[in-house]
């Protein structure tokens, strides 16, 4: 719903100097407010941002009024006097195109800075409701007492979820994300497009989203969220598969199994691979380790040993138990020697292979450089070679040298790469075998310790039967221990397999439906057309100097002229012209059905960035030619000279000039003689005929009727007494 700003007010109450008050009226359409520096324009503009809850847009935390000058927070000066501020507040009026209006009021000092008082009026100007709403965190979600929630409802703006960089839970587009595109502040707003965008909520692509939202392309914003969520989901799945694969490979490595569990490839490929073959099956396939079969064999072995100990008859004539134990120790020692020998050999081989690898890598590097030397014509031996003694021609081949072609060197490089791959695979194979051999060595060490204990026990035992019993018992302990280890391994592998299954199930779920992007193209084209028109209207010199190119919008909706970014072409003052044209173009393009721009623009000191004559003239020319035709509200705070004021007045552009005094004027005591203006509000310097030039076009005069009705509602603030300040002596206070 389009709306307009109708007024801004600031009231300051002091402990000993009474109250001070300032107000600007803003009819719909264009309004230029010209006032000298230090008049208090910035105070008024700051008050607008503050009352709209936009302090975060100016780099302040919520509820921080530090952008205001001390005149409204600490001490206000008037003449020679200084008065302590005990309370101050700002107020603005907003009126929708259906006539419904609101008055927003917020304390700056001496009240609850976290609340905004909203008074609602119907189209006839009758008060409907008054409420105190909260600003800051949570004010969007709070449907009862949240200011942002109210504001979105009042403007009929939809809540659109957007993706954040912090979590999968989306957040929303906030008022302070939209305002930088229609409220251009003098300090930062003119420096570049999106200069005052708010990033504290970590919304992804918020610059683009703010533009799309105002254009009304909410379907595109929603599609962005879906795409971002899908991207995040996939990134998470990729990360999970890498972690899982590395966990499984580490497990295999620790167990001495040289088996890979690859996470290479896209999600679909890995899902297919991991769901086709399980971990246990892979282990069996690659290493021949069948844990289930081993467990079963151990069970049979344990049963046999238990039978020997418990029920089988003992052959007292057998004397091989002791020699068997002794033989087992010998076998294990022999095996340990072999495996240690193998480890030593493997390490030696690995070192040699790595040396070869380094050598090939060096040769490959040299060959690559020689290839570049030849293929890029950096240098080539071309000297005429003649024997200094016999004067006959000498060819390199005479000395077993060659001058190779680039192709020949390339072929050599390919051969070297093959060698490199071959050696690398050798090193990998050696690494794999080393892992296995080390684990086997540990296992043999354990077995050997057990066998030696068994042998030592048997050496102390007298009698064949006891020897057999002892041997069987020792063996049973070892078998049971291995059975336990094996069972634990099976359980751990099953745990890993479960993790794989969970991942496969998650990765197999259908992705987030991204959906269609809506009618962005039409809206984007309308924006491009409007932007180009306004760039020409405001006199952007950069694009004028490059005729024939087309305007386009690229990343973050930054405009490009042909292949050049518009912000990078033209003069320094073109930057502020670009910012202005961008804001105007966006408001204009948003007039398409469904557009969500609030329909009001505020430009604070557009001439401050470059005060040269040419820049000022281009600005005045634009206003003279185009300002009265704009189909939305444009309020400009600036300071114009008499000639410029006259030019605008002659063109019928509503302009209010306040060249002396201060924005905040003392409110006279009720006993003092008073002067009142037509609306019955306290007189401002603008009412003084010798200081004010105010011209209003016929069209905007009609709007003023509605505005004055809204202004009358400001009586709630309590400054409608018939008073008239002495503007010539009032206001030495520093409002800037």
């Amino acid at each position, binding site marked *: 719903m389009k709306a307009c700003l109708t007024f801004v007010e600031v009231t300051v109450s002091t402990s000993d100097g009474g109250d001070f008050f300032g107000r600007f009226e803003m009819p719909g359409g264009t309004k230029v407010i010209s006032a000298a520096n230090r008049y208090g324009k910035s105070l008024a503009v700051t008050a607008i941002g503050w009352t709209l809850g936009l302090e975060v847009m100016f780099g302040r935390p919520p509820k921080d009024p530090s952008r205001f000058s001390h005149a409204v927070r600490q001490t206000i000066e008037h003449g020679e006097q200084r008065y302590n501020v005990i309370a101050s507040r700002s107020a603005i009026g907003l009126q929708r195109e259906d006539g419904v209006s609101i008055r927003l009021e917020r304390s700056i000092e001496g009240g609850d800075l976290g609340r905004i008082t909203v008074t609602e009026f119907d189209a006839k100007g009758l008060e409907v409701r008054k409420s105190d709403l909260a600003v800051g965190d949570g004010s969007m979600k709070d449907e009862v007492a949240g200011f942002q929630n109210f504001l979105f409802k009042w403007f009929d703006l939809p809540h659109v979820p957007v993706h954040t960089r912090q979590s999968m839970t989306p957040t929303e587009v906030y008022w302070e994300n939209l305002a930088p595109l229609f409220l251009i502040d003098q300090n930062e707003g003119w420096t570049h497009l999106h200069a005052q965008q708010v990033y504290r909520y970590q919304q992804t692509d918020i610059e683009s989203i703010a533009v799309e939202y105002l254009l009304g392309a909410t379907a595109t914003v929603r599609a962005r969220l879906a795409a971002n969520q899908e991207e995040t989901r996939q990134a998470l799945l990729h990360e999970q598969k890498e972690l899982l694969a590395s966990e499984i490979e580490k497990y295999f490595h620790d167990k001495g199994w040289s088996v890979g569990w690859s996470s290479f490839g896209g999600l679909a490929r890995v899902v297919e691979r991991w769901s086709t073959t399980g971990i246990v099956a892979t282990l069996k396939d690659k290493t021949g380790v069948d844990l289930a079969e081993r467990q079963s064999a151990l069970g049979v072995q344990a049963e046999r040993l238990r039978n020997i100990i418990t029920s089988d008859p003992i052959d007292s004539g057998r004397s091989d138990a002791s020699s068997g134990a002794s033989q087992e120790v010998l076998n294990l020692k022999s095996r340990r020697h072999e495996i240690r020998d193998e480890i030593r050999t493997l390490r030696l081989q690995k070192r040699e292979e790595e*040396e070869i690898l*380094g*050598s090939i890598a*060096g*040769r490959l*590097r*040299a*060959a690559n*450089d*020689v290839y*570049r*030397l*030849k293929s*890029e014509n*950096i*240098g*080539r*031996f*071309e*000297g*005429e*070679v*003649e*024997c*200094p003694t016999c004067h006959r021609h*000498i060819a*390199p081949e005479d*000395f*077993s*040298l*060659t*001058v*190779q072609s680039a192709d*020949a*060197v390339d*072929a*050599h490089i390919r*051969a070297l790469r093959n060698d490199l791959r071959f050696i690398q695979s050798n090193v990998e194979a050696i690494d794999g075998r080393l892992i296995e051999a080390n684990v086997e060595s540990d296992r043999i060490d354990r077995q050997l310790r057990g066998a030696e204990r068994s042998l030592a026990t048997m050496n102390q035992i007298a009698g064949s039967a006891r020897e057999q019993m002892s041997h069987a018992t020792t063996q049973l302990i070892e078998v049971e221990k291995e059975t336990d280890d094996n069972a634990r391994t099976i359980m751990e592998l099953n745990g890993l397999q479960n993790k794989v299954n969970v991942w496969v199930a998650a990765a197999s779920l259908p992705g987030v439906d991204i959906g269609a992007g809506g009618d962005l193209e039409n809206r984007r084209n309308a924006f491009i057309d409007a932007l180009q028109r306004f760039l020409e209207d405001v006199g952007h010199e950069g694009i004028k100097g490059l005729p024939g190119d087309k305007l386009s919008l690229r990343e973050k909706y930054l405009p490009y002229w042909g292949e050049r970014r518009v912000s990078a072409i033209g003069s320094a003052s073109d930057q502020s012209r670009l910012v202005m044209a961008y804001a105007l173009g966006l408001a204009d393009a948003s007039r398409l059905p469904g557009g969500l721009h609030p329909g009001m623009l505020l430009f604070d000191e557009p001439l401050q960035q470059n005060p040269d004559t040419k820049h000022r003239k281009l600005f005045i020319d634009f206003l003279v030619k185009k300002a009265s035709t704009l189909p939305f509200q444009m309020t400009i705070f600036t300071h114009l000279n008499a000639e410029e004021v006259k030019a605008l007045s002659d063109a019928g552009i509503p302009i209010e000039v306040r060249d002396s005094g201060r924005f905040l004027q003392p409110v006279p005591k009720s006993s003092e003689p008073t002067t009142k203006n037509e609306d019955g509000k306290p007189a401002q310097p603008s009412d003084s005929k010798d200081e004010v030039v105010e011209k209003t076009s016929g069209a905007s005069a009609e709007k003023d009727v509605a505005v004055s009705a809204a202004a009358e509602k400001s009586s709630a603030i309590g400054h409608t007494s018939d008073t008239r300040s002495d503007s010539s002596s009032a206001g030495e206070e520093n409002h800037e």
Partner: protein
Amino acid sequence: MPDVFDELGQALANAGASLKVSRAPRRPVLYDLDYRAVVVGFVFRATAQTKKAAVPQVHATWVKLLQFIATRPDLLTDFEEWVKERGKHSRTSQRLRRGFLSDTTFDYVLQILVASGQLRRVGDADLVAGRRFRDLDSWCTRSIEAGLFELERAVISEMATVRPNITMLMEGR
């Protein structure tokens, strides 16, 4: 020159196997004149000095040693050990010296560089810039600008800080 693949194929055929050669063998770039010449150029630029002579000059054996190691960077550590053990009869010295002496490729490259006027021999064993040294010099400059042979140049730069003694140079003869 007998074809080694023919001989190998014949031997394998006798054993009931066959040989399949998919490509001709490639000579390493170590025998490429362009490569070796530019490395000699780097060494000359890094080591030739004006001392008693009017023009920068360097001992040819020193060039031979430096370019030998620059094209085989793995030997740099052996060279450094050799420098530490000057005058001693260590295994490092022996190992390096043998490889160094057998590098006849350098001798051929030097002959061609001298014959083409890039370098000139003076006195018993010194080298100075020849009448066409500018060609070799600019070739080296372009290679540096293109970021080529960084490893070789780093090795040469490392070795150029060593002051050769008579023993080291005589061993190269």
